[in-house]
């Protein structure tokens, strides 16, 4: 209970702070901490973190299906900040098996989770086994349905090593897309050229498309699937309000 209370308390305190202050807390309290960089506007995390500490651990998941522009951008960021970006790959045998059994575009026939599981989540899990904390660019405004309650700091139970703690920081949780882009422009941060071509959310090439005026950014991802409701939530925040 002590640890849970601690994380909730720190999260409540950090939630009132700026992304830079949250990042400073994360980087000063964890030596073995890595930034997950998707090759999109989460580059602001690298810019902010670099101003705090130069020896950053950054990793990117190369699914093998990214846009050429994203590969170019990852390389640009590596050179711009003179940092190592650990590019992480899926297990070749698992990709081969998937493609052999279901073809190169199986996600259009079912849902994207099987392919994402092999190309993104398995390598992510392997990578996270090597760190004590990680930093993501998740924001609440990216998906009002499923991310409305993204905390700035959380205990990551899904990816933690057995009997150990893994802390996940989401410093941009409270920022809007506009704030991110204002930061990019004001600080001359390099950005993925796909953004100039109408892409807001950037993922794998077959599963990402530009969005039109008035469309939410999530409409540019897996557009052939219906939005699914997460039905197992217990809304603990509401429970706390009623019981404490």
């Amino acid at each position, binding site marked *: 209970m002590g640890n849970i209370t601690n994380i*909730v308390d720190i999260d409540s305190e950090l939630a009132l702070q700026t992304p830079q202050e949250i990042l400073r807390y994360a980087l000063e309290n964890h030596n073995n901490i890595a930034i997950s960089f998707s090759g999109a506007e989460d580059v602001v995390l690298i810019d902010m973190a670099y101003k705090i500490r130069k020896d950053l651990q950054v990793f990117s998941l190369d699914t093998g299906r990214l846009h050429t522009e994203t590969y170019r951008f990852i390389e640009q960021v590596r050179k711009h900040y003179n940092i190592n970006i650990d590019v992480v790959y899926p297990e070749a045998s698992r990709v081969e098996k998937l493609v052999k059994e279901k073809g190169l575009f199986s996600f259009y026939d079912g849902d994207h989770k099987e392919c994402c599981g092999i190309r993104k989540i398995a390598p992510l899990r392997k990578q996270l086994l090597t760190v004590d904390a990680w930093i993501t660019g998740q924001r609440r405004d990216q998906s009002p349905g499923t991310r409305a309650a993204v905390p700035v700091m959380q205990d990551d*139970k899904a990816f933690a090593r*057995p009997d150990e703690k893994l802390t996940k920081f989401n410093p941009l949780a409270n920022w809007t897309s506009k704030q991110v882009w204002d930061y990019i422009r004001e600080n001359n941060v390099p950005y993925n050229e796909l953004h100039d071509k109408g892409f807001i959310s950037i993922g794998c090439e077959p599963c990402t498309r530009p969005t039109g005026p008035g469309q939410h950014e999530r409409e540019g991802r897996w557009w052939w699937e219906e939005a699914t409701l997460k039905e197992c939530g*217990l809304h603990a925040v509401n429970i706390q309000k009623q019981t404490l």
Partner: protein
Amino acid sequence: MTKITMVKKIFADGSPCKKCGEVEEKMREAGQLEQLDKIVIAYEADPQSEGMQLAAKHNVDRAPFFIVEPESQDAKIYTVYFKFVKEVLNAKTSEDEELKEIMNDVDLDFL
């Protein structure tokens, strides 16, 4: 002696949450239900129900979850089924099953 409690959620219309049903069925097939000391219900419509109170107490926002209480030690909470069965029940799980559970439970679409 370790006490193990499972908390599962029941919607206001009386139906179980999908994952709770799936997990319970898996545990039944694997003969793991007998290893639980207690199954507690979190009634969506009743914030005072025992399961909802336990969720609040342990700051858990997902169902099902497991409370593992070794004698004279702090309770440990498991919200990830495969971790619970691997670490507490010493059962084997496949990587495919583990990835599937992670994908269904955690919003990782930002990656």
